[in-house]
């Protein structure tokens, strides 16, 4: 297993380099630059800015310089937020996104798996239908609809919870964003669990377990649940990476200082270094979580051995 992990670790580098290269040149291909605003800068000042940020060099040289910088862990200064470096921005935003996203995924996992399992056990009953209908609604209502609705009900009309802000991450401020973030995940995980659970319940080894006269809860928990969770686990890898790097919609609506909005704002502002920084960061997370998922497979599924 260690050898496998090491092999995967080595294999990750070319992937990462590819991500960096593609992202670097794609961002540069977009028309307009970081210092283009409605106000036109005097050409001398534009030239000075370009020089300061090395934008006057040939693109290949800039690429080389960038690789050298990130090799030393320096993502460079942000073009947009001039008082901060990209490292500082990611360093400040990631703990927020991690807490929100981590809690959301955990919540989604607990509720989603429970609901999915119950629905599968009561297949085609009223319970099953209502869980699946809710799940369908949860998947189809986008975040930018759900989040303002939650705000309107719980913050504006009922006044139970704050309508936004981070406040150093107080519990009250995180409840609504976590719910909004986890709802679509709950729905998705519930459907995944139900589907695979139904399949597992029909398989031979479950029939054997039942035939042996094992009590039903042992059959479900010890024998059925583990294999039924495999599709959920493989979904969880990329989903966790996506959720903990922040959601621009949730962050904008709740006014949270997470990472997610830097993807969108960085791209719109042509803040080259910031976009690259978050893309690389996201890339690394995806690679890491996929590795974890692969390792978990070996734990969950006796047929998988590395």
């Amino acid at each position, binding site marked *: 297993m260690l050898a496998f992990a090491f092999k995967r670790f080595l294999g990750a580098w070319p992937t990462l380099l590819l991500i960096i290269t593609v992202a670097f040149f794609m961002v540069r291909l977009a028309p307009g630059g970081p210092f283009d605003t409605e106000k036109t800068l005097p050409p001398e000042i534009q030239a000075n800015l370009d020089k300061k940020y090395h934008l006057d060099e040939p693109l290949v040289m800039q690429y080389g310089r960038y690789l050298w910088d990130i090799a030393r862990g320096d993502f460079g200064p942000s073009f947009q937020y001039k008082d901060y470096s990209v490292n500082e921005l990611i360093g*400040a*935003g990631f703990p927020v996104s991690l807490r929100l996203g981590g809690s959301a995924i955990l919540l989604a996992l607990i509720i989603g798996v429970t609901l999915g399992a119950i629905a599968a056990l009561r297949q085609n009953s009223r319970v099953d239908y209502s869980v699946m209908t809710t799940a369908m609604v949860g998947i189809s209502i986008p975040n930018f609809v759900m989040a303002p609705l939650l705000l*309107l009900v719980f913050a504006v009309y009922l006044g139970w919870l704050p*309508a936004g802000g981070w406040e150093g991450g107080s519990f009250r401020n995180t409840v609504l964003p976590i719910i909004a973030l986890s709802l679509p995940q709950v729905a998705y995980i519930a459907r995944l669990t139900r589907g695979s659970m139904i399949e597992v319940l029909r398989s031979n080894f479950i029939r054997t377990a039942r035939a042996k006269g094992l009590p039903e809860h042992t059959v479900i928990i010890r024998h059925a649940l583990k294999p039924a969770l495999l599709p959920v686990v493989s979904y969880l890898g990329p989903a966790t990476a996506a959720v903990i790097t922040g959601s621009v919609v949730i962050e904008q609506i709740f006014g949270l200082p997470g990472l997610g909005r830097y993807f969108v704002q960085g791209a719109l502002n042509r803040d080259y270094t910031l976009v690259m920084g978050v893309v690389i960061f996201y890339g690394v997370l995806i690679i890491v979580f996929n590795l974890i998922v692969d390792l978990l497979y070996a734990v969950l599924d006796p047929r998988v051995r590395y």
Partner: protein
Amino acid sequence: MRIDLKHITLIPLFILIGLLYGCSGENESSQKSGIDTGSGQANTQQNTASTSTEPGKLVLAKQQIFHRGNGSEPQSLDPHKSEGVPSSHIQRDIFEGLIGETPEGKLIPGAAERWEISEDGTVYTFYIRENARWSNGDPVLASDFVFAWRRLLAPETGSYYSQTFAPVLNAEAIIQGKMKPETLAAEALDERTLKVTLKGPTPYFLGLLTHSSTFPIHPASVEKYGDKFSRPDNLVSNGAYTLSEWVVQSHIRVDRNPRYWDNANTTIDTVFFYPIEDQSSALKRYRAGELDFVYEFPINQYKWLKENLPGEMRTPLYLGNYYYGFNVTKPPFKDNKKLRQALSMTLDREIIAEKVVTAGVVPAYGWVPRGVYNYENEEYDWMSLSKEERLAMAKKLYEEAGYSKDNPFTVEIRYNTSENHKKVALAIAAMWKQALGVNAKILNEEWKVFLENRKQKQVTEVFRAGWIADYNDAFSFAELLHSQHGINDSGYVNPEYDALLAQSAVEPDPEKRKTLLKQAERIMLEDYPIIPIYYYTSKRVVKPYVGGYVDNIMDHQYSKHLYILEH
């Protein structure tokens, strides 16, 4: 593993109830937005609210904390590196320039207690207050201003606003790197006396000094911390407040500066600036009582606000205009004034302002907005004609330009992606179609792509544009259409217009200068390089317990002028 299933079946029900409850609230507002009730008067009605009250007569809240929505995250708090209105609002609280402003926007002494202007209007001598102090206790010196201004102009700084200082002698040569920053015609005669020599009489020079880019910075901390001097622990400032906390994308906290010379007249102790870009979220936080001040409400909530929070919504005239430009460097608009005039005359600006845009914006028939200091704006003569007469005239011009219903003109309207711009573009395309049979295609582009296309003048035909003045003077609008100006995206060139602007720059007599600028505006309007559409309004919502709040056309709102009443 027995779970009480009854409760689980309730979950979808609960969500549904939540949905319905939420929806009814939202629907309310969207339904109301179909009805119009003479929105044009909105600005005048609210201007007087809560301005006549004095803090002495009212009960102040025990906690003087002001929660201020502030649009977007400031790019920087360094006065020379920041750009955009949100950072200026914070900088006006933490720094103080030579000139201050009353809540109404009148110029008053700031860090300078008085000043003298030479007879020809080119030499300004400022006397800095003896009790002006930096937040670390150092006295504010004349040389601090010289230091700041040299840095503003030095090409290495890369300031977006270096051109604010263009009226000062040698400033332009310094920006271009032809002269050293030390040659700037601003010198400290002694610790408190500052002499500034201008290129020509610039009647708006004092107004320029309220712009955040002209604020002083503390030389010792710039030398010590370099680019990081504007961080919370490093920043030494000379305004009514000091920077205490800056959590990027969350909030900026400023606290009362006990060393500020006028500290005795400051009421609010702490101000939180929240960078909330999503306007609906800002309004929700306001309704939930978390914000005292909404920077800009979403335009689709105008009708809702008007009915539900009428005393709190404020839409005063703002010094900005929304217009369409013609690319006059290429066909079909090159040398085709008749066509341009016909298209301009066809627009029903009242409908656009009152039904399409709403929020109290004012239909525009001229270039310089109303309310500019020492100016009466020029407007098209045909403004007095009835709509039918205008249309008849426009049709005639359109036909003279060689187009007709059978041979319609085809054009592309380009705008940057935004709900409001789209609505305006659709309305304009429909008006042209209906009146003249013009086939207008509308095309939206992402902001930076749009800017580049507009600047290059290769693919643009008709494009959206807007301008918000940096200082309260007609010249801040007039210069935009100067043949050499960087934002003249129409490519308009008229030597006569340029000559009048040049003349106005050296004219010491304000009345004569005004006549020159008005003459220039008239000439430009008659050339039709642009279509004025409407003048902007601010879109504020302010709690009734925020005292001392007065609308002003520059939208300069200093927290030190405000106070929080018991509520």
